[in-house]
């Protein structure tokens, strides 16, 4: 079973995605904010895919991605954002090897999220 790490500073968003992904047959690890995410990434927990919000207080999504890089974790990642103007993050995201196709804009249609998850995990 694939394990997905869901990271968002808004607990209700984590809850919605977690509820949905579990229903769709995934295992879910949750982190309410960047600090928790980094803690999990540093542990030896198996993660097959991460869904991370960009704009979070204290530790942002970009910082989580940067830490993930340092830890040499290579799982595919989906980036969530609440603003349509991602231009200021785009350069950094590109440096990490992400493109516009890895970004989903809130409010996200959960089935669009499922499609992208399946696509990243290469499951039909």
């Amino acid at each position, binding site marked *: 079973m694939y394990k997905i790490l869901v990271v968002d500073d*808004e607990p209700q968003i984590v809850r919605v995605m977690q509820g*949905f992904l579990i229903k769709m047959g995934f295992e879910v690890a949750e982190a309410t904010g960047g600090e928790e995410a980094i803690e999990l990434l540093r542990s030896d927990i198996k993660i097959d895919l991460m869904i991370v919000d960009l704009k979070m207080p204290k530790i942002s999504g970009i910082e989580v991605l940067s830490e993930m890089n340092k830890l040499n974790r290579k799982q595919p990642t989906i980036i969530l954002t*609440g*603003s349509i*103007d991602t231009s200021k993050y785009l350069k950094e995201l590109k440096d990490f090897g992400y493109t516009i196709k890895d970004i989903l*804009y809130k*409010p996200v249609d*959960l089935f669009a999220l499922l499609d992208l998850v399946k696509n990243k995990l290469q499951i039909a």
Partner: protein
Amino acid sequence: MAKELDEKIKFLQGRINKLEGKLLERKQTEGALRESESRLYTVLETIQEGITLSDETGHFYIYNSAMEKLTGYSREEANTCPDFIKVLYPDPQDQQRALQGIKELLERGTCREVEMRILTKDGQLKCILIWSSLALYKGRKIFLSAYRDITEHKEMEKRERLAQLGELVADMAHEVNNPLMIISGNAQISLMEEIQNENVKENLKIIFDECRKAKDIIQRLLKFSRPSRGELREIDINKSIEAVVGIVGHQFELSSIEIIRDYTKDLPIISVDEQQLAEVFMNLLNNSKEAMPKGGVITISTSLAGNFLKIDFKDTGCGMENEVMGRIFEPFFTTKEKGTGLGLSVCCGIIRAHNGELKFKSELHKGTIATILLPLRKDG
């Protein structure tokens, strides 16, 4: 006898010396005067501000080159043009302020600096700041005024304000998108449950659909709240119109106004400043709405017309009289109680900047058609 003659000569010599002294003095004074005049002239002609010296009748004694440059009118034109004040300050509110300023000047000798808009000879609208004071000239009260062009400064202020607004909207959108996702996500999850009651199912679907609509509205709002950078982008005109209709559509529906779309599909892509164009669409739609206080129909059609893309906004409103039609592009001309009279003159400016044309056809009590023509790109 000789002694007498000597004395006379001496006397005359004395007078001559005195006269020569006076002449020299006078020459020196004249020289000083000329120098002072030349200094004054240099100041007046070098200073960046427009400077005028005028009397109550509006006659200009001084009207420097900076003033000629600022207004486009020469001193002679300013002095011979009937009602020059009204020509220069077309906004009735500004004319009122000018009169108020003169009153203040006569009562107190000075007046506060006032901001006014002038219409230059070549039709530009400039924002200026005027300082005036009362001076005495040959025993008469006259006005000394200095005019500074603050158009660019104002534009910059406006751009900064818009940028701030854009940021505010972007922040707000971010805040709103989170709860929207929670609402729509919960509706989606609930819909996955076994629901017996069809009404509940329907309600959840409505919640999800409306969230999606709200997302669209926010995205469009975000797009237009960012200030225009004057960049040209390739756009599909139907989509650009639709984006504006998406913002105002619901409000129009509430005012019993139906919007009919008659778009021609697969029109060529054109290069425009989409935000500025959106401002024009918004303006035309609002004008149509105001022409139909009891509701009506707006038909928006797009089509090809030779080398131009044609967009028509046709309403079933009150229409315009010929006299009004002739003046709609005049800055500050308005028929609305709270109008600025700038809407259509700005629209016209935007369309002209795109090398296009904005024109109106109107029939009283039947309606108005606003037509925008935008040139296609030369390469296709």
